[in-house]
């Protein structure tokens, strides 16, 4: 323990064989349900980690074990160098959590009042409270609705208030559980920008569970995929694309409408827009390069502009699930279910 009162050198989250099972009463029988199975993960301070998985894959259970709400059945977990269950109260001072579907604010009170109470809860001196509240209000643009009761806020406004509430005590680790769910595109954008900036200026570690691949793309440098309680992937986004063999996409804007560019070697025509003015071609990065495909296209038609898009994330994740499930024919049904789940994600 350093003089500052907490361990600043170790990982911010460290789990080893973390397991959680539930007994579920199914009519007259009892079943053991394994929500999280042998999760071993280390997260260093300052990282931004996306934690993705289908509904019921074990994300919320993991979060609950990280914050001390649930006791693990097996394995160990250390958050900010503390044991979540035993040192819950100390841990609470270092972690901020934002629940997308649950509120930490007082429903019938004005937003400002909630902040005052939280400042009291975290025992912030008056000057610090003023400073931090002012900063958060400014950066999250909350000045208009500070006096509005929380229950009258729109979802976007409420999420901003929730994030401010979670950051008021300047935690080292911020866990966000589906923070952008239900938000419109603009709100999502602003929220993401705020979190990126926050990380840059404060070095806050972010752990984000989400169904929204846009969040993952823009916020996270590392991705953990959990599938039926087990860790299916731990690495960066590009690696995920490579692992699942997903393809990159070349998007070309042509000078004049042209028929579909089929027959380009090692490339597959995905679609055309505006009568062929914009066309999309997918290619496997292992088999050819963007330059080669572009050269082949340019030889045929006049190209005015082009971009190369990374693999479609939903496609990637779906493939990962499919890959995990392949080899066990009876999982075909699960596959369809997870695929439907993934396709339902919002961008």
């Amino acid at each position, binding site marked *: 323990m350093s003089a*500052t*009162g907490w361990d*600043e050198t170790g990982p911010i989250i460290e789990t080893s064989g973390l397991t*959680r099972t*539930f007994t579920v009463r199914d009519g007259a029988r009892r079943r053991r349900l394994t929500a999280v199975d042998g999760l071993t993960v280390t997260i*260093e*301070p*300052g990282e931004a980690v996306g934690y993705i998985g289908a509904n019921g894959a074990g994300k919320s259970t993991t979060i*609950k074990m990280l*914050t*001390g*709400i*649930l*006791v*693990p*059945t097996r394995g160990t977990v250390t958050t900010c160098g503390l044991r979540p*269950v*035993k040192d*819950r*109260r*100390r841990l*609470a*001072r270092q*972690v901020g*959590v934002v*629940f997308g*579907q*649950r*509120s*930490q604010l*007082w429903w*019938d*009170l004005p937003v400002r*009042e909630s902040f*005052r*109470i939280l400042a*009291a*809860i*975290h*025992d*912030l*001196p008056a000057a*610090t409270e003023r*400073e931090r509240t002012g*900063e958060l209000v400014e950066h999250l643009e909350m000045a208009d609705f500070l006096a509005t009761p929380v229950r009258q806020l729109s979802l976007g406004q409420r999420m901003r208030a929730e994030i401010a509430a979670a950051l008021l005590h*300047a935690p*080292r680790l911020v866990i966000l559980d589906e923070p952008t769910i239900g938000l419109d595109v603009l709100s999502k954008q602003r929220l993401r920008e705020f979190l990126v900036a926050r*990380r*840059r*200026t*404060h*070095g806050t570690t972010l752990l984000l569970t989400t169904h929204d691949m846009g969040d993952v793309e823009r916020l996270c440098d590392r991705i953990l995929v959990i599938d039926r309680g087990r860790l299916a992937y731990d690495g960066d986004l590009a690696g995920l694309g490579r692992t699942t063999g997903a393809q990159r996409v070349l998007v070309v804007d042509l000078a004049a409408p042209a028929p579909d560019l089929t027959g380009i070697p090692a490339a597959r025509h995905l679609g055309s827009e505006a009568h062929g003015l914009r066309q999309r071609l997918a290619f496997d990065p292992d088999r050819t390069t963007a330059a080669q495909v572009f050269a082949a296209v340019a030889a045929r038609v006049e190209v005015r502009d082009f971009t190369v898009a990374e693999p479609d994330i939903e496609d990637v994740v779906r493939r990962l699930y499919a890959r995990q499930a392949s080899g066990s024919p009876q999982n075909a049904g699960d596959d369809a279910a997870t695929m439907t789940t993934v396709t339902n994600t919002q961008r």
Partner: protein
Amino acid sequence: MDDAGLAGAGPGQVRTLPPRAGELRRRSRGARLRPYRAVLASRARSQATYRANFALDLASSLLTAIAELAEIWVLFRSVTGIGGLDFRQILLVFGLADLTFSLADLMFGHCDRLPTYLRAGTLDVFYLRPQPLLAQLITSDIALRRLARASVGLAALVAGLVVNDVAWGAASMALLALALASGVATFAALFVTAAGLQFFVVDGRELTNSFVYGGRYAATQPASVWPHSLVVVFGYVFPMAFTGFLPSLRLLGLPSTGWLPSWLGWCGPLAAVWAWTAALLCWRWGMRHYRGGGG
């Protein structure tokens, strides 16, 4: 800004945040109570702002208490005495029991609505705050409307003290004070027990009602009419007789009855300690069950 000195650090570099003043300084009593005061103050304020509703709540609370008193009055006026007590004497019992119950209800009454908190996920939010969970639950609300109910209890208590031949002195004052304090504590423990049990029993509200509101009902009765089974349950297991009946026996100089000797009127604090031990145990078991394992 606290971390202004580290503005030069680039992205991805680990920044060590200097300690904030709050971390290092020894938390004074005032600082420890600050979060609770903040929540309670805001709840009280928010209740007072919805004036029409609040007035309505006060009125209904008042009406309920009056109806309960009226029921006792109807019974006692049809005969000369019940269980060796007449109406004037039962007024004292009612006053003590109902006043202490109302005050406990004011502060702890929301606790037995734990399932609502569980459903709304509020309890999970409590886990993320640096205060003990039970303390957060208890201070999460205050029911000011119960003040109206308490006023009826208080009126009955005062009336009971006035119309009866109470031997005033240091001893009786002490007894009264003890009875009031331990009465509130005992009833408060019931609410907490109800909360703890409701972790286990789904839809357990009716079950807990049987000792919380059944207890209140029992506390305003002349316990001398109870058969032995009721004396065990509401005399000792849920020590309701200690909140009103036994102190009244002592104050009024009435004889002991059945298994309830009158000197127990002084043992209110013992009853409160017992009730709170049981309450904290239930709470602990409940929490353990919720978290799924040893704490």
